[in-house]
């Protein structure tokens, strides 16, 4: 700014340099603005500190190896208590797997339809409607997962073969919840594939279907990967749907008909159970929370890196 012109030392420009576009009082405003921006940095530090401080307390009681040992159950209710986190991770992976099995084909189909088939006016109308699915409070989906999907559909359909609380009912509603994420992020990726490539394919006598699947889809694949990672991060972090409908029995299984417990489900259970501060139950909340935070953080960062690479490839 004004400091660039340091060789000039005439009075006027010296004065201007002293007060570059600023009045008394504005320095205070500047400080306030910087403080505002600092809040988000402080939040990150606070999250990391809070999670890891108490997680360290947990690992004083329970060894790291015990926590990550496949052979151990997650059994915190009665002695001998055992904190093998893989059962909770398995629950999270379980709902992630099945919700993606449902949401991926539908979400990508929607993205392809909106990007390659829909008339601009249809798209303007359909996209906000689809995005409304992401705006529905998750407790509403939780209620539907339990009362509608599980009670009214899955139980009559499978009877004894499925438990009342099951991973599938939660996965169905999780899939509905993340549909717009997959559809809209993938659609953005496909829309940024250059028009040239579509024209080249059409010029060679490709049909719309072939252009969409053989040219646009492969060209947008990294953006689509980012969409999938973001969707997975959302599923992993979602709490209400799994806490209500998937059950509360830690279970090392990937079957959709069984009752399970996810990491978030366990955390909510501890919060409802009024665990006393300092107990292993209480600190286990932070250990699981820290693991959850690391997982979602890694997914989000990976998605951002992929998106940035993808943008560079087409700029």
């Amino acid at each position, binding site marked *: 700014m004004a400091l660039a012109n340091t060789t000039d030392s005439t009075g006027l420009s010296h004065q201007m340099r002293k007060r570059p576009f600023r009045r008394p009082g504005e320095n205070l405003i500047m400080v306030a603005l910087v403080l505002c921006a600092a809040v988000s940095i402080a939040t990150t530090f606070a999250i990391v500190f809070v999670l890891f401080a108490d997680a360290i307390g947990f690992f004083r009681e329970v060894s790291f190896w015990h926590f990550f040992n496949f052979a151990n159950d997650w059994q915190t209710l009665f002695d001998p208590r055992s904190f093998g986190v893989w059962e909770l991770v398995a629950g999270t992976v379980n709902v992630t797997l099945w919700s993606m099995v449902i949401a991926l084909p539908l979400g990508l189909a929607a993205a392809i339809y909106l990007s390659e088939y829909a008339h601009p006016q249809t798209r303007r109308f359909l996209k906000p409607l689809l995005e409304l699915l992401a705006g529905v409070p998750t407790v509403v989906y939780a209620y539907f997962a339990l009362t509608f999907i599980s009670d009214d559909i899955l139980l009559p359909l499978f009877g004894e073969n499925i438990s009342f609380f099951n991973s599938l009912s939660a996965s169905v509603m999780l899939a509905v919840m993340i549909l717009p994420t997959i559809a809209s992020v993938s659609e953005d990726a496909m829309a940024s594939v250059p028009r040239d490539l579509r024209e080249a394919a059409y010029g060679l006598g*490709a049909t719309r279907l072939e252009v969409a699947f053989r040219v646009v889809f*492969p060209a947008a694949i990294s953006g689509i990967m980012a969409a999938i990672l973001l969707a997975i991060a959302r599923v992993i972090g979602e709490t209400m749907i799994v806490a209500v409908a998937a059950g509360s029995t830690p279970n090392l299984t990937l079957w959709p008909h069984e009752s399970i417990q996810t990491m978030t489900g366990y955390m909510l259970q501890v919060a409802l159970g009024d665990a006393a501060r300092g107990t292993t139950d209480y600190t286990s909340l932070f250990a699981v929370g820290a693991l959850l935070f690391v997982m979602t953080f890694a997914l989000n960062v990976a998605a951002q890196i992929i998106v940035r690479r993808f943008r560079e490839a087409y700029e």
Partner: protein
Amino acid sequence: MSIRVRSTNPTDDEAREALQGRPAEEHVPSHNITKPEGEPAFSISDLNFWYGTKQALTNVGLDIPRKKVTALIGPSGCGKSTLLRCLNRMNDLIPGVTIEGNVRYRSADIYGPGVDPVEVRRRIGMVFQKPNPFPKSIYENVAFGARVNGFRGNLDDLVEGSLQRAALWDEVKGDLKQSGLALSGGQQQRLCIARALANNPDVILMDEPCSALDPIATLKIEDLIRELSTDYTIVVVTHNMQQAARVSDYTAFMLTDEEITGQLIEYAPTEMMFTQPGDQRTEDYISGRFG
């Protein structure tokens, strides 16, 4: 489909009648529009075109000869690219366009009922202004058309043959697996030509194929165009008059003026057009007085 096509001459009877030697003058009203000898590859008459309500072509009519190079020249905005894209129905892909008139390819009305644009584009290949190889290997770029068409012959031979015809084989035969995007601009454009040739088209449309290339790469493409014209009908849009003079047998000059957008001013054998233009506006343009 989002286009409205109003064919003024859609019936089969009339098509047959046209084949049985109707006088050509009916299609080419102006005395500055030459009718090339022989049976034309394309026969265009009374072609009007609108983007939405904006007219882009007005009463264009000309015959494009077979196995010759025809250049479309004119200042930007004159409609030459639009005309080119009418020949393989690429304009269908733009929402809200209207096409009126008659475009015949050999005997068939390109906009006739039942005509499939995919079939049209398979026979009438296209090369674009900016080289646009797919982000795939050289091999897959050339094989694309064959793969979507379910080609049953020897794909390796087809790829090699097409690359040879496009004068690219010697430069890339060592590594067909490398990405098409790794090639230089001129090589990319020849790859795009090879890709079009692999479809075994009758016609190749080229939309300013050299405008993004350096002079040496441009010369190579121009040589290639000359060479290909022994077997293919080629229509090339260019705003480079020297290029039109170098590569084409026939030249069409188009212009948008205050009253009429996208009109065909003059159409003649290239030599004649550049030595004794029949229209003052053509002369002004080729002597560089505007455009």
